[in-house]
């Protein structure tokens, strides 16, 4: 077993995390999130150029003539793959057909439309609401689970760690303007599960140690528990990150955002279960009596 003095850094990291959380909140309020068409409505077209003449500027100039409003075009993975997004209001049944016609006239037919997504404003509002509900319900369910399994001090520690992870992940998404779509909601829910998982394993050990080392102060007891579970924490993070990295690097463009959010979440989740969840136990003065009461 290693013996690292994690508890020496509790204050420092609590401070850093609070700072990051506040920055994230400010970012979310003032910069906001870059919602994809799932949540904002609009149309997305993934196009592959077969004709090498077709490039981003030729696409831009042909789309600018189509009266679609603000069209965003960017490369998507490969040089010859493009993602075209716009927020056309109102339904138009022949939209894609008309676009094809216009494209054929301006750049020829040396392209392939690989994917089309069109989400109406009503549906996108519902998806956003559904996503938020899913996240809220999952946080609630975790709170409930940990409340029946542990004492309230532990619940607060675990939930604050969860909020920390979700908040900072979203803050980073806001900062670098990554697109938030349905798969990001899935990633957040999985992060919630993972972060909880990691925290619970350490808490489990804290509880066991509270009974075993009655004389030990919670400040040192959390440190002992973190050290005892440290190799597990690291090994599991490593294997999970290995899996996520291979999705990120080889799983294709569509899963990039999802796996990136998950990678952030796993790193933050591992960090927070050590440096957020445990200091809270210390601050709430958890001791032997906290858990003995429960068992009577």
């Amino acid at each position, binding site marked *: 077993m290693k013996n690292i003095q994690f508890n020496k850094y509790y204050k420092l990291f609590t401070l850093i995390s609070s700072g990051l959380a506040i920055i994230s909140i400010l970012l979310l309020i003032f910069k906001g999130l870059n919602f994809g068409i799932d949540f904002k409505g609009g149309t997305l077209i993934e196009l592959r150029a077969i004709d090498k003449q077709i490039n981003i500027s030729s696409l831009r100039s042909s789309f600018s003539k189509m009266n679609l409003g603000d069209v965003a075009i960017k490369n998507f993975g490969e040089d010859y793959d493009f993602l075209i997004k716009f927020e056309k209001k109102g339904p138009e049944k022949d939209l*894609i057909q008309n676009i094809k016609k216009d494209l054929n006239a301006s750049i020829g037919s040396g392209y392939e439309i690989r994917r089309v997504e069109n989400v109406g404003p009503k549906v996108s509002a519902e998806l956003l609401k559904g996503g938020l509900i899913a996240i809220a319900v999952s946080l609630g369910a975790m709170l409930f*689970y940990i409340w029946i399994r542990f004492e309230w001090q532990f619940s607060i520690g675990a939930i604050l760690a969860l909020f920390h992870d979700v908040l900072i992940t979203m803050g980073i998404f806001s900062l670098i303007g990554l697109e938030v779509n349905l798969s990001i909601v899935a990633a957040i829910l*999985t992060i919630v599960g993972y972060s909880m998982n990691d925290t619970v*394993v350490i808490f*489990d050990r804290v509880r066991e140690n509270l009974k075993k080392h009655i004389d030990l102060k919670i400040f040192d007891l959390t440190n002992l528990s973190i050290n005892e579970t440290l190799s597990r924490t690291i090994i599991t993070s490593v294997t999970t990150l290995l*899996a996520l990295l291979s999705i990120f*690097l080889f799983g294709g463009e569509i899963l990039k955002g999802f796996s990136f959010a998950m990678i952030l979440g796993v790193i933050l989740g591992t960090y927070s279960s050590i440096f957020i969840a445990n200091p809270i136990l210390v601050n709430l003065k958890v001791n032997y009596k906290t858990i003995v009461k429960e068992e009577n």
Partner: protein
Amino acid sequence: MLYFSKLRIFTILIASLFFLFFTLSNFTKLDDSFFNKKINLGLDLQGGSYLLLEIDNKPVITKELQNKITFLKTYFKDKNINIFNLKIYNQNSIRFETDETNVELIKDIFVDKEDPVNPFYEKYKSHQFDLENQNNIFTITLSKYGIIELKNSSLDQAIEIVRRRIDEVGTNEPNILKRGNDRILVELPGLDDPMRIKNLLGKTANLTFRFVSKSTEAEFGTDLMEFEDGSESPVYINKRIILSGENLLDAQPRVDSQTNETVVTFSLDRVGAKRFGKATISGVGKRFAIILDDKIISAPVIQEAIVDGSGQITGGFTFQSATDLALLLRSGALPAPMNIIEERTVGPGLGKDSIKAGVLALIIGFSLVIAFMIFKYKIFGLIANTALIFNLFFLVGILTLFEATLTLPGIAGIILTVGMAVDANVLIFERIKEEKAHEKNQLIAFDSGYTKSRTAILDANITTFIAAIILFFLGSGPIKGFSITLGVGILTTLFSVYFIARLLTSLYIVRNKDKEIKI
């Protein structure tokens, strides 16, 4: 914790073979329908089109109110109750006035559960209309359940028509489902250009035959209508309907042998034939219009009476457009217009690429995790890896057994499961290490390692499982696929850890009980 009876080993073996069999059945072809199960590929992997249609029920509600007004008129006339100023009020209401003397009587009629004036729905415990009155002015408004009932019945009709239209086009295994009370979800695997289906579903296909009015100005009882192809300027059409799509028995695309033009021929039912005959006998020389969804397709001059109940529509069709029109006419009109409010279409090329990328990521992620475990735990790493391989077979086997749908996020879920599945074994191995530090008897150390790590393992897995369940119920589309693989993955992980890995551990330590076992 480490003892396994022969029976138990046997059961584990059978279960493993069972799932192994189903995993492999994805790659083989068997005649038996029970054993030849395969995982369904989601639309994002096999390519295809997902459409969400919403019925615009406003016309249905207006029509219901109009019918109600007609009904109320005759009903109260028969009862000799004087009502007047009967008209549609706002969107969902009808308003009428009556004499002071009838106020109580009318109130009684509207709350009577048996009276057909205001039907009572037993299942909702609600009337169709809510009644309000101010002195002698009555307002009846469609109740919440009155509207639901109306929407449900229009959805039932619409889904039938949608099914017929899609079946006629003949796509591969379409999936057509109700969503809520005014939406229809259509999944069309393998269809990479849903243009034609979208066109077909976007049309109400309300067909009417009406006379063209001679007047060139707006007149009572006429509507100004445009031509579909814009070949002529708009003309005034009589409101009176000679024939509607309901009278149609059949419609087929044909090439007229004389003019070489593509036409749609139709035949009428008896009522329709009679009416059409009558109208054409009296209307020779007049122009009548064939109108589809408020646009004139063609407006020929009646050359002679048509009494055999068949005819043809010309309108400068291509063979494709004639085929589609005939299809629409055969399948009938939708009760209300529908809008496509969500569309997701993936071409087959992208689907194949996604599968390739997903499988590549799985192989690499799997290999990395396996290599890391061997590096970290040597022989016990091998045990954990064996359990991991079994875990994959179980997971894929279960997905196959239930013929679940695998999506790209679903594949991500499998890869993530691979990464997280070793966690339980890691928890156990680390615990055994700790136990060995103060317990001389190896067997006891191993045993208590298993016992003492159990709560942590359960807690850790339950939390992820909760997240997966919530995603399953609240997530949509491909995300559901992710929640399924993640959730099932947790179950198979626990099984593989507690049965496969524990069995192997037990066999290994019993064989080497006299040696020092390193972990």
